[in-house]
């Protein structure tokens, strides 16, 4: 498999200020692309544009050679996006939260195999024993971990992660970094913003926003 997300002459304006202009970008299988820049430089906006959430930009997006508006369904079926807000319901337990995401990925959440994989995904992020605690009672870092459990629960080729290391402890950060590298090595591709220093890796590419 190979995938390719391409942006041509991307430009975005916010409050009479150009966040970026004439940005050409190609992201392929086996890459970890880190978007860098100071606060307010448009990292999140760029990620949202690249994941097809924003419409008010100039330029073109291509997914595997096809224009994004034609390939949107295929693109979304292969995208996993984690935003600033973890997307975790405080009133539901981690297990119930994951069940919804599993169902959105097309797998029945009634199946006992799939229930097993939810438990595994939670154990992977170090939340064994917290499966049935309402997510609202978990700490910010634990809630973030619930969201990160989706990385193993619903396999997708393209990961778009906005500040995934926020509120995660040192061991969690190391494990997540390994997971990103493993994903890229197995042919996936990661697009990430973070203020955390990523360990240098041949797969890592940096893109700086002014």
């Amino acid at each position, binding site marked *: 498999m190979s995938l390719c997300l391409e942006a041509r002459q991307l430009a975005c304006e916010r409050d009479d200020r150009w966040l970026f202009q004439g940005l050409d970008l190609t992201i392929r299988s086996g890459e970890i692309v880190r978007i860098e820049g100071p606060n307010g430089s448009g990292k999140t906006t760029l990620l949202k544009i690249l994941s097809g959430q924003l419409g008010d930009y100039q330029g073109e997006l291509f997914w595997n050679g096809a224009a994004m508006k034609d390939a949107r369904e295929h693109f979304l079926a292969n995208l996993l996006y984690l935003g600033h807000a973890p997307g975790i*319901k405080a009133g539901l337990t981690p297990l119930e939260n994951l069940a919804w995401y599993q169902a*959105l990925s097309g797998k029945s959440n009634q199946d006992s195999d799939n229930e097993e994989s939810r438990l595994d995904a939670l154990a992977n992020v170090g939340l064994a024993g917290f499966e049935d605690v309402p997510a609202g009672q978990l700490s910010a870092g634990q809630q973030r971990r619930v969201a990160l459990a989706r990385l193993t629960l619903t396999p997708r*080729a393209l990961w778009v992660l906005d500040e995934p290391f926020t509120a995660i402890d040192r061991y969690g950060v190391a494990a997540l970094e390994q997971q990103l590298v493993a994903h890229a090595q197995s042919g996936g591709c990661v697009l990430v913003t973070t203020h955390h220093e990523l360990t240098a890796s041949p797969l890592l590419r940096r893109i700086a926003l002014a």
Partner: protein
Amino acid sequence: MATSVGPLLEHNGGLMIAVRATLVRDLTLLLRRRGEVLNPLVFFALVITLFPIAISPDPELLATIAPGLLWVAALLAALLSLDSLFRSDYDDGSLEQLLLAPQPLAALSLAKVAVHWLLTGLPLALMAPLLGIMLALPAGSYAVLAVSLALGTASLSLIGAIGAALTVGLARGGVLLSLLVLPLYIPVLIFGAGAVQAAILGDGVSAHLAILGALLAAALMLAPWAIAASLRISING
């Protein structure tokens, strides 16, 4: 933690699975926040209780205004509960995840609206005959009242969800939401209250109920697309 990446997923079916999971999720969430579910019902009961006290306990007078009162109070109660429809999803980031789901957004938002109706419109409709007794509603119109409200509030939930989707990005969208949605509620109100009035006068109610049904059918056809488009606009802005 080895993650294996399979081949690119060609398409993502499982629409029924996703719709069902969304139904279950929203039902679970709302049943755990009972206060929010009870709010419109308590409002409905309070308003109806105050009228006989404020106007007059005279049963004849009350009976003439009862259909309109019950319908207006139920409509406002339904309106009151709309703002929270997408609000918490917006705040915790699940709304952007919903928009990024490969399934059609219209179908998923229809599931959310269905839950809203099940826990707001339907209880209002079931409660209305009880409050009708308090307003000395003439016998024989109770069933029509419940049926007209059940049909009508479904349209109200669908139409209201468009407004809720448009205003979800605004910090204080409540007033704007009412202004947007109320004009669209008027046809439902006219035919809903008309049905109960007709039942009291002994006229045929089927015409009124048929029109309510037609309004609901139209709303079911069109509203999901409008809700999906409105959510996209709110998230983009």
